[in-house]
């Protein structure tokens, strides 16, 4: 199955990855090959098969509703690219 340049640009935008024209051309080739590989799936008869999200048929454990964390802001913000007044800074958010 081939993938169009439009699709690549759309996917790149969804994934928030900037791509230039040359990269789009390369990705068209690479992603097309990968999709050809995964298209083998279509041959499998899965009409009576339920999807499997996890290898083990386990169920979720729930945690007691207790506060176990303390304020570690200083440690976390020490590794942040930009902070001020305890806030993470980003270019202006417009709704």
């Amino acid at each position: 199955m081939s993938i169009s340049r439009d699709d690549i640009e759309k996917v790149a935008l969804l994934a928030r990855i900037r791509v230039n024209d040359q990269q789009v051309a390369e990705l068209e080739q690479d992603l097309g090959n990968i999709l050809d590989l995964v298209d083998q799936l279509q041959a499998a008869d899965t009409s009576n098969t339920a999807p499997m999200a996890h290898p083990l048929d386990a169920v979720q454990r729930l945690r007691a509703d207790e506060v176990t964390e303390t304020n570690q802001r200083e440690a976390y913000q020490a590794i942040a690219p930009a902070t001020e007044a305890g806030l993470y800074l980003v270019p202006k958010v417009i709704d």
Partner: protein
Amino acid sequence: MQWDVVIGLEIHVQLATNSKIFSGSSTAYGAEPNTQANAVDLAMPGTLPVPNEGAFRDAVMFGLAIDAEIGRRSVFERKNYFYPDLPKGYQTTQLEQPIVGPGHVEIDLPDGSSKTIRIHHAHLEEDAGKSLHEDFHGMSGIDLNRAGTPLIEVVTEPDMRSAEEAVAFAKKLHSLVTSLGICDGDMSQGSMRFDVNISLRPKGQEAFGTRTETKNLNSFRFMEQAIAHEVERQMDILEDGGEIIQETRLYNGDRDESRSMRSKEEANDYRYFPCPDLLPVEIDDSFIDDCRSRLPELPDARKARFKEQYGLNDYDAGLLSGDARLAAFFEEVAEHGKDAKLAANWTLGEFSGRLNAEDKAINDAPISGAQLGNLIVRIADDSVSSAGAKKVFEALWSGDGDNVDAIIEAKGLKQVSDTGELEKLVDDVLAGMADQIQQYREADDKKRKKLMGGFMGPLMKASKGQGNPKLFTEILKKKLED
């Protein structure tokens, strides 16, 4: 043309758990920015979510309260989009297999009728953080304290036909979740947020028109205004032969304006898929039984009991039972005051009025149910007139005394109800009013009622305002008509 309005709601209800839905961080409101955001909430590399039992308990209690089917197996999915207040780049939510299935809520309408609103489902999810737009050198600041706070999103069927019905539903839901104790109901802090789906269709047509979604309304008043605004906007377009575009809109309550958020939506493709860091949650009978045993009395049951137990009318019972804290306050007043009707009047009148005027929550009221109850006792036994009672209430509210009898005493508000003493006062006053007595005796019934006031004034003055007006009237009538 005549148009039918069709409204469906999506309501985000913040759950009043101690900790977040997937981490042990506190959910307390109002902390310094990012002091309640731990490694999991910040989506630090390698960190993993572990779901909070309390959030499931709250959701199941809600499901039981709306008579819904409980999702015995619910699955968290990832809703993918980039936004700075969403640290993981996806929101963990439920889609195909939510914790609460279809249910229903009854609403009472002002005309005395009631209506059933169907609930499509309710699902658990995590809240996002907040973007603060104050100017940080042209940047926005991100506070992730709220990120990961548990929410249930309640989705209704498009069963409402007016803003009035939508608001009645919203208030009922508020009453329900606060009565359950699963949400603090504080709308100003965003504890409940409404998205409204609105469409119009020609009267008589069955098929729905194209709808719009107005997002993030955080008060009943804004919701009502936003609906009115959007209905008008759609009607204008349709009457001009135009078409409604399916879109998300943002309503500005201060300016009564709305605008499209289309640009944002167009590029979105949320790519939901089951979250591989979490396993299916199975809810068994014992969990449900435990939740059922925790269910408090719900508003509908409470209303019926108030009518039965206290002999209240439907309207008063409805008002008093809707808010769990108001209901509890009323019951305390009634218990101490003995007279339920008076307790209801004072709770809904003076007390609620005062709270509204001062924008105070019930828990912050400076007067207790017991105090108001004691005042009711003194009103009922004629120790204090209703005007005097208001003065006592004022004293209690402003902290000018805390004992009802002591305030009555100190302020000289005790009502004289000794008939001998009152009769003597009447005789003294009437002695100097021969003309008026003559006039009264010659008047017809209608006129007599008016003339009565001319005697009451001097009588109240003579008693320094402490004479019981009811007794004064009785004695006067006897003396004048004999």
